[in-house]
């Protein structure tokens, strides 16, 4: 069995809202991701996907529970966690006044990539992502497709074992989105662990090895696509998703029972 790189147990986040008081954005979720796996978080807007991924990337501190990436807890060693991950989302922009090459160099350096290898790494990435032609142009002069490539390159700058993609295709046109999906598959082939959040069913169907359906801060189920099909009897992910969400809202026990079992299993594994 391949190595478990991300382990999330009982992770919860509540924050304070002036009008509403305490808001529970994520309510104690459990999952883990392995080497060479694309793990999908599928959920509607406001389901808690981004909050979960922000906790994994240590932007937010969890209110309860644990998230351990490459053996480092997000709360105890946030900097070590961030060193071993690359975070990409539609909202993580690039510095407009740096060139593509400088951008990659900057991110390699502040992610503490070995100093003497930075120059090599930058050239490798420039070549790999097809940036060579515009490597010395300032980012604000690039087209959105070019920017996307630079963004990916900077996410990879320090060659992290874990990559987090938070709704990466939002705002991209079809071709760019496909290109990105292809790239993500290549990264999996290299053995990266990829956590991928989306609300687009086809994307999840095509890419993810395992899918967790998240709704109102809770993971309703977590399985491979085939496994989901089997347990619901539906073929399309859309139907499967709706089925779980409805069941979750009605409070039916069938789904929750499975989840509970997983959770206890996770905990006992951790205890050992």
């Amino acid at each position: 069995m391949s190595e478990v790189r991300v382990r999330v147990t009982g992770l919860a986040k509540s924050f304070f809202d002036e009008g509403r008081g305490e808001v529970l954005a994520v309510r104690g979720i459990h999952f883990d991701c392995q080497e060479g796996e694309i793990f999908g978080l599928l959920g509607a807007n406001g389901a808690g996907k981004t909050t979960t991924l922000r906790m994994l990337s240590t932007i937010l501190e969890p209110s309860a529970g644990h998230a351990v990436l490459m053996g480092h807890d997000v709360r105890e060693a946030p900097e070590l966690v961030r060193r071993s991950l690359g975070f990409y989302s539609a909202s993580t922009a690039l510095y407009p006044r740096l060139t593509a090459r400088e951008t990659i160099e900057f991110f390699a350096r502040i992610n503490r990539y070995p100093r003497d290898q930075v120059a090599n790494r930058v050239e490798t990435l420039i070549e790999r992502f097809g940036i060579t032609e515009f490597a010395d142009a300032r980012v604000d002069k690039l087209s959105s497709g070019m920017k996307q490539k630079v963004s990916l390159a900077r996410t990879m700058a320090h060659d992290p074992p874990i990559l987090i993609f938070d709704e990466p295709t939002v705002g991209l046109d079809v071709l760019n989105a496909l290109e990105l999906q292809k790239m993500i598959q290549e990264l999996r082939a290299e053995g990266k662990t990829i956590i991928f959040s989306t609300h687009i069913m086809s994307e999840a169907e095509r890419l993810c090895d395992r899918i967790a359906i998240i709704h109102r801060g809770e993971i309703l189920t977590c399985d491979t696509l085939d496994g989901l099909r089997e347990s619901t009897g539906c073929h399309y992910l859309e139907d499967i998703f709706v089925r779980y969400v409805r069941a979750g809202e009605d409070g039916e026990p069938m789904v929750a029972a499975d989840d509970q079992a997983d959770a206890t299993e996770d905990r006992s594994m951790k205890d050992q």
Partner: protein
Amino acid sequence: MFFGSVLGTLFRFELKMLLRDKRTIIVSIVLPILVMPLLLFSSSMTERSREERQEAKVFRYAVVGAEAALARQVIASYVPEAAAEDDAEDSDAVELKLEEVESTDPQAELEAQTLHFFVEALAPGVWLAEQAEEAKDEAPVAVTERPDKEEIPLPLLRLVYRANWDDSETASSEMRYRLRSARSDLRELALEESGFPVAAGDVAVIEPNDLATASQRTGATVGRFATLFVLLFLLTGGSVVAADAIAGEKERGTLETVLTTAASRRDIVGAKLLLILAVGIGITVIQILNLLLYVGLDLIPVPDSFAVDLSAGTVFMLLLLFLPLAAIAGSVLLLVSGYAKTYKEFQLYFFPVFILLLAPALASMLPAVELRSAIVLVPIANLSVAVRSILVGQFDLLFLAIAWLVSMAAAVFAGRATLRSLSTERLITASELDRADLEGGAALFPRHAWRWFLGMWVIMLLVATNLESMQGLRPQIFFNLIGLFLGGSLLMIWRYELPIREVLALRPVKPVVWLAVILGAPACHLAMITVAKISAMLFPVPERMLEGFSNLLMPAELPFWEVLLLVSVLPGICEEIAFRGVLLHALRQRFRPLALCLIVGVVFGMFHISLIRLLPTAVLGVVMAALTLVTGSIFPAMVWHALNNATAIASGYAGLPLTELEPWAYAAAWLVFGLVSFLLWRHRSVYPGLRRPAP
């Protein structure tokens, strides 16, 4: 080594990006450097051309009145050379050309601006009569009869001019100067003729003898403004970079990118702070050099007595003191940037912050403020006074060190708050759906409460300072308590449809609380007096500040029961409704309990306008807020507040000054206050819906 570290890398790239931003460079560095010479040049140009115009110009005046002929003689007796010798300082002043013209109606001509001024020469008798007439209207003081001086043939000259017309003002003051000079000549002459034994100029000679060196004198002048100017440069220079530093990054979405890298938040904030400091200090140095350059080029006039003689040690100490100043300016700017979500928001916050930071730097302009006072605990203000004390050459190393540490601590505090702002969800990410705005009503109130209280404060300030009729106790109490506090509170409750019982915490309390309140109020009152006394020992405060703790306004003409009603019962009800009712409720989820009490207390203190009453009332406000939180009800605070004020009133009527009791009385008061606090805590029933401590 530094540039290889993460902090160094961040700083290096930030600097690189800054230098590529032409707009910022031009606005924040090039323009200020150009503006100063332009300003100086244009002002010296206008000054010169004004002088030239005045030299060329002929000012017209008329001499009228019964004694016009005599007046002309006096005017003619003015000798320009002699006057110039008398007054060496004004020797380079321009000699204006004054020309007398005939005028039948000088008043009308002055209005029509064809005449610059006129001299009305009155016979002494006429003038005396006028004076007596005026005096009769003004005050019933008897006018002393003057001996008959009619044999002295001197007229009384009245200069008539218009101060709202520059030329009139200039010409008439020139004439005034000439007349004074002529008068003193005439006086000396008259004395000499009447056989005065010595020269009039030698009578009662006063010779000032200043022991301060020229450098110290200059220091006293420069020291008043030095800190203000340096801070001004630091803030204006640093602000452009600061706006971009966090707020700009949020707007562009790059902050989230950098927050997910291995760079620690400390490094990120540190690099940004370094950048702001580098630019702020850089611009300050450039501006000061710029200034010195123009002083050197004589574009800025410097008095002859100006002498700067700073030793290397003094310069070092000044630089050392400006270090925390730069740190505060930088970290506060960065903090503002951290709290603003966009550029625009930063600009919105910048102006009030700018004023708030500059205001304490004015402390060095207050003549009597010494560093060895409470001012040493006020960041920025302490530096400005410290800088002046160094420039004047009289300083106390211990207090300099305290000032330095206090200001540095303030800078560190602001820096840490910035660090925290990078961990606050609300601040990092662009605001998503805002529920409060959609729901409106009660949900919106916590955010609007500040505005309401600010509005109330402004109204109160305006009324208190402007309306004479409000100066009396009765109208003032009715306006403030009933109109503003009670009316304002009810208006807020009505406007936001707030649940009145919850907002005002109208809940019953356990009987034991009443016992605690009755014992606690007078005990607390006495206990607070000791706090004031101790702080007065450490930091000398005016005597009146102490009295502020116990003496309330007590007009003797009102009967005791009415004073009790106005100063004890009504404040107990109305002020508690506004502050421990509405304000406390509005802020209860914004701050944790301790901060909540402090803030409610300070706001309450601010509403007492005068500086002397701020501290005692703020302390009372904190105690009242804590009482409300612990008992979960407003009623104990109402009674405590009323009893507190009643204690002061009663002591006033009984002629027993509470500030001068025996030490054992204060000790007993502390003991009772401590017991009461314990009792209240034991039987607490906490105010519902408070903000819980962070996980």
